[in-house]
């Protein structure tokens, strides 16, 4: 029996009347005529005095249990099954693999039970976005189904290993459907761990869920597919809307992209430059400045979580740094102020961290622009303490890179060398 969200009095009432979520019910209450509808789940934090009914005209209302005189279960109406015809494959078209990891783009709501389920099976995808079958033959695979705020470096490893297993496959390119919240972290993780990957990988998300007519998922998927099929590029990209309009899709290089808005379609932006590619209605334009050098595919799929990303602010308590050191962390990435500073109150703790052998890197909370620690005394003091300036690397990219570098470096010298070397175009000057 399903009672999603019901508790206390409400739950007791349903059990007593042998009614569960999804049942077609008839309720006699304050009106001469009964209410007819489907019992819906209740939000976790609602009271226990109401039950939620989806009325026949589609409206959801809460009915006060105390006012219910009689309640009956009606024979259940069969919910319309999605009529999905098996998609035809066209042997002349290239093959694309879509790996789904969850998030808004890959979920749909079951309105009967309120459950969110992964929705991106190949046939469903082709049914909801028929344009795709004209561009490529798409196979799909559900790797896991998590909102991206729940992802851990362990998930990056899972995704990277899955992608690695297809590195020499006949797929032209691979789409990874991903929640948008931490998509840029995953992008960076893949860029470092799958350095030189021989195909293009497009991480695609959506800012408006696919169950609404205005969803951005459709165009993001269509243009990501076109990008993989029509360009001959390799590497990891985040592929999302470039503007608020449904007209242009931007392909951002993995280590230079950031989610810069909570809700807009074009929330993802290439920091400090233009996107690598812009996909338009009838053409795909490459950024002339985007010229990654070819590197041999050399996957190193490892991450060490013992890295802290610390944003400095007026009033920051240096004891937090002491706690990080004593908790066994191996690296600290600062999001410093301006050109890359933290107040002198921090010097003692930074010194301790360096003595303990931690890597201490400096990025800027300005996000855009270069860290320049030679301009002011405080910057020079920090350099003197052994803080490593990280150029214009985005703080989140620096965090992921440090996790990766820590796992693959044999000592602190190598870690330091890896952190300042431009490995996956994470420095863009």
């Amino acid at each position, binding site marked *: 029996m399903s009672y999603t969200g019901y508790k206390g009095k409400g739950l007791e009432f349903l059990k007593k009347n042998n009614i569960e979520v999804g049942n077609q019910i008839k309720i006699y209450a*304050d*009106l*001469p*005529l009964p209410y007819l509808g489907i019992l819906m789940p209740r939000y976790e934090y609602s009271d226990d005095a*109401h039950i*939620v009914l*989806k*009325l026949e*005209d*589609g*409206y*959801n*209302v*809460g*009915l*006060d249990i105390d006012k219910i005189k009689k309640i009956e279960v009606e024979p259940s109406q069969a*919910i*319309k099954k*999605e009529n999905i015809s098996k998609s035809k494959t066209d042997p002349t078209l290239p093959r694309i693999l879509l790996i789904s990891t969850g998030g808004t783009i890959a979920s749909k709501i079951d*309105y*009967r039970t309120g459950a969110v389920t992964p929705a991106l099976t190949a046939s469903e995808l082709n049914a909801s976005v028929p344009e795709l079958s004209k561009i490529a033959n798409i196979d799909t695979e559900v790797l896991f189904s998590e909102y991206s705020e729940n992802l851990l470096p362990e998930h990056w490893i899972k995704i990277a290993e899955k992608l690695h297993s297809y590195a020499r496959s006949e797929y032209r390119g691979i789409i990874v459907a991903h929640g948008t919240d931490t998509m840029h972290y995953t992008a960076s993780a893949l860029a470092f761990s799958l350095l030189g990957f021989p195909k293009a990988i497009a991480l695609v998300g959506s800012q*408006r869920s*696919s*169950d*609404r*007519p*205005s*969803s951005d998922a*459709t*165009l993001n998927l269509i243009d990501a597919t076109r990008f993989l099929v029509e360009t001959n590029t390799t590497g990891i990209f985040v592929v999302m809307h470039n*503007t*608020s*309009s*449904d*007209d242009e899709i931007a392909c951002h290089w993995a280590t230079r992209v950031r989610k810069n808005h*909570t*809700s*807009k*379609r074009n929330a993802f932006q290439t920091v400090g430059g233009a996107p690598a590619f812009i996909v338009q209605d009838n053409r795909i334009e490459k950024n002339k400045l985007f010229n990654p050098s070819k590197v041999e595919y050399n996957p190193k799929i490892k991450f060490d979580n013992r890295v802290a990303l610390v944003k400095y602010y007026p009033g920051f308590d240096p004891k937090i740094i002491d706690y990080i050191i004593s908790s066994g962390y191996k690296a600290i990435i600062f999001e410093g102020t301006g050109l890359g500073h933290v107040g002198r109150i921090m010097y003692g703790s930074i010194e301790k961290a360096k003595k303990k052998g931690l890597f201490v890197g400096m990025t800027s909370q300005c996000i855009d622009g270069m860290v320049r620690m030679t301009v002011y005394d405080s910057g020079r003091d920090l350099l003197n303490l052994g803080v490593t300036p990280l150029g214009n690397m985005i703080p989140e990219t620096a965090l992921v890179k440090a996790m990766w570098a820590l796992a693959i470096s044999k000592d602190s010298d190598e870690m330091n060398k890896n952190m300042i070397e431009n490995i996956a175009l994470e420095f863009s000057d």
Partner: protein
Amino acid sequence: MPEIQIDKIGLQVGLEIHQQLATSTKLFCKCSPTESEEYSIKFTRKLRLARSELGEYDPSAVFESGKEKTIAYHGNPESSCLVEQDEEPPHELSHEAKEIALIIASALESRIFTETYVMRKIVIDGSNTSGFQRTMAVARQGNLQVDGKKLVVCTINLEEDAAKLIRDSSNTREYGLDRLGIPLVEITLQHIPGKPEDFKKIALTLGRLLRATKRVKRGLGSIRQDVNVSIEGGDRVEVKGVQKLDQLEKSSNMRQEGSTASR
């Protein structure tokens, strides 16, 4: 065409009245609910059919979907923000609008739901940037007194107004966002037999009652009726967006002719 004898054809009319509320903000954001033709924001979208919350496709939505038009939206930053642009989730429901809807529901002696939810009504002609109208059931089963007779008020819903159509060409349809999100109540009256002048009187009575709250908008376009007309043995026909009472009388007359002719 032979003259129609109105009392012999079994004319039935059901009115659905949409009244904009006089609030200081829109229903789901703090934008000013003022209509203006000055637009500095422009963007374009394509809408695509999505299943309704009941897992079904709305037939009129399917019809619109076949047209695949580009929709251009024009906005003024005073009267629209990211909510109207469908770039941000809706903010908290306007308490003012809720209060007025409850006053109207009480004046119409209806049963008010103690708990209600915001629902999506799929509309993909472009008049809602999201592709659906946000609407919630406020009350059911009320009464409207017209000439001493009680008329059943079936439903009272609180919803957001749609965007204003500016232009419609073969490839592009253009809307202004200033009207989108203005709170309105939708009042559906029982389908009853009568003469065109009776329905005009019903609409007049309801209009007076709404204005008596002093909290509804005045002026052309602030109240609109959908008129459902049928005659004995004929199909039900809906005339949407009737703005003047004379048009209401005319549309019931006109629809009778239409229904008679198609019999």
